[in-house]
């Protein structure tokens, strides 16, 4: 019996049960749960059927729910997004997979020009309850175009939600909420940590809120803000800093847009210092937005300039050099120390 079959075993018999899963297995479980609980939920994308997705996120779904609800589409990302918009206007809840975020750009017109505004431009007559999932980010030695972090494109578009889990529990809970949400959600999965850690999750079908950051560690000296795979470097940095007597508070933004700025502001009010860690290119991104909001709304709390630890303003290097590009634990620790040393 494969892992996936074990995962789904007895799902119908028991409403809730505890399972120990990786992030990608948590995605699979949430998909399974959502399809089981609502017949309007359908899954579509490239290789999502028999193959179970190239990362196996949709493994076993076709066998359980059939090819009418788990649809292998032709190889056309524009189509995948456009078809999802159309389905959603009819009250289906399509969960579309774009195989890698690097291929999402053909779908962007539908996301920005239609999904994000269908409710608004029809004054509520039609809506677009769809989820577009895509693995994103670097660090897995993938070919060109398989490692980018361009979440800011979607966060810049009102009408969309952008959600990024950083752990199996949050992947499960946030994906369930994304599927149940009445509006379009871009759900970006940090593939570097797809199988990094296992967590015990309760497969109870209960989602996590999409309007709040998660404070993963409390601290008094500095606030570290991150999301996605970088949460792991950030937590590691916080752990090592603690050994040096520096107590960092760590916030996982999780729901990038709309952004829960209050949690970040409250934390900075306490700590007076903030470092934002993102894997994406440095300029015009989510870190820049958070930094700008801190300047606008939290200036008087700040005892030092807000700092960013980010990728560089270059294309994502081919994998031989991706580690230079990506923020490291040491980058974070050094930036924290510089920020603490500011008068």
């Amino acid at each position, binding site marked *: 019996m494969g892992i996936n079959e074990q995962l789904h075993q007895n799902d119908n018999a028991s409403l809730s049960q505890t399972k120990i899963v990786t992030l990608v297995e948590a995605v699979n479980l949430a998909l399974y749960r959502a399809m089981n609980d609502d017949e309007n939920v359908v899954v579509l994308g490239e290789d999502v059927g028999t193959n179970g997705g190239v990362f196996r996120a949709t493994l076993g779904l076709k066998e359980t729910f059939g090819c009418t609800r788990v649809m292998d589409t032709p190889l056309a990302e524009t189509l995948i997004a456009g078809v999802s918009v159309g389905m959603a206007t009819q009250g289906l809840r399509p969960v579309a997979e774009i195989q890698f975020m690097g291929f999402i750009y053909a779908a962007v017109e539908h996301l920005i020009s239609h999904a994000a505004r269908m409710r*608004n431009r029809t004054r509520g007559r039609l809506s677009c309850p769809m989820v577009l999932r895509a693995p994103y980010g670097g660090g897995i030695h993938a070919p060109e175009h398989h490692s980018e972090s361009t979440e800011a494109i979607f966060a810049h578009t009102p009408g969309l939600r952008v959600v990024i889990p950083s752990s199996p529990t949050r992947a499960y809970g946030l994906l369930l909420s994304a599927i149940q949400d009445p509006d379009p959600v871009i759900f970006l999965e940090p593939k570097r940590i797809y199988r990094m850690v296992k967590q015990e999750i309760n497969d109870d079908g209960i989602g996590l809120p999409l309007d709040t950051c998660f404070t993963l560690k409390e601290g008094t000296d500095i606030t570290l803000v991150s999301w996605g795979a970088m949460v792991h470097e950030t937590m590691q940095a916080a752990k090592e800093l603690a050994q040096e007597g520096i107590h960092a508070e760590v916030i996982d933004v999780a729901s990038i847009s709309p952004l829960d700025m209050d949690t970040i502001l409250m934390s900075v009010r306490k700590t007076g210092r903030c470092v934002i860690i993102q894997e994406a290119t440095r300029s015009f991104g989510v870190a820049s937005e958070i930094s700008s909001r801190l300047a606008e709304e939290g200036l008087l709390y700040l005892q030092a300039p807000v700092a960013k630890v980010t990728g560089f303003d270059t294309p994502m290097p081919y994998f031989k050099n991706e580690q230079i590009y990506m923020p490291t634990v040491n980058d974070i620790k050094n930036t924290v120390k510089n920020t603490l040393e500011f008068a």
Partner: protein
Amino acid sequence: MKPLTNSFRDKLQFLNEAGELIQDLPRHLKVNRLVDFYQTLVMIRLFDKKAVALQRTGQIGTYASCLGQEAVSTGIGFAMQSTDVLANYYRDHGAQYLRGVKLHQMLQYWGGDERGNVFEGDAKEDLPNCVPIATQITHAAGIASAFKLRHQKRAVVATSGEGATSRGDFYEALNLAGVWQLPLVMVVNNNHWAISVPRELQTASPNIAAKGQAVGIEGILVDGNDIIAVQTAVHHALEKAHSGKGATLIEAETYRLCDHTTADDATRYRDANEVNQAWEKEPIKRLQTFLHHQGLWSPNQETEWVQHCQQHIENEVEQYLNMPPQEPGDFFDYLYEELPYAYQQQRDQFIAKAGGVQHGH
């Protein structure tokens, strides 16, 4: 189901440009029905003329006229069932009107007011006018997929111009419609001009209907100025779709007698002789001639109907001009089902800037 024509090269026509019936009417159409067709065509042309005038006097924004192409959209409207869905582009006044979209709503839309998309009646699930070219066709494929998945006996009609057939969305939706046997009817209004680019620069294909062959679906070429041919082809395609026999591509060949929109000046790129020749083939005169000869329509009826249309259009224009302004909060209240806390302050700022105070919906 038997194909409607022998080949995508055979142009379906019943009524020629002289107003002569060149073959028997199809069985599903009684001759009296053609009076309804005619009346709607006249209504749409008069409305279109009025809309252009409203734009010229600054009472609506940029407007896309359907002059000369009325038979395409009107023919579609007369073929669709109330439970079907229309995914249209922006020259579909005829089908929209027949599906219950009010003329004042069309003016609202072109007048810069989102409430022009709040359709009722048969159009309540129809998509709003689609401006990004061809994207409505992939949406239509999604709607058709939903119908198929739910075993509903419904179909989608997606319209576009011929320029749209150069775009990926057109090909991707067409291809999917073939693979998934979708209840989808794609109607291309080939009016020969995509703003300034002629049909010949869009594709080297002998015609657009031919493109159905590449994806395994029936392609039908019709005279788009013959409303009987258009209605018949769409009727055929919808019957096929409703009975689970898949999709159809229809190319309706017509001519854009107007500018692309009111913001365009077609004299910059188009020969006046070509336009004058195209006027000889326009869709309304030929049907009027036919109905006269059949004794189904008289000059008196014409006068009365034109008066009726003009009165109706005036009433709709009045209604448009007298609409209360939108509530400024609406721009935020319809952004998500529930306004996220993150945007509440901006909503207040927007309302304050608009100079009004109002409550959520």
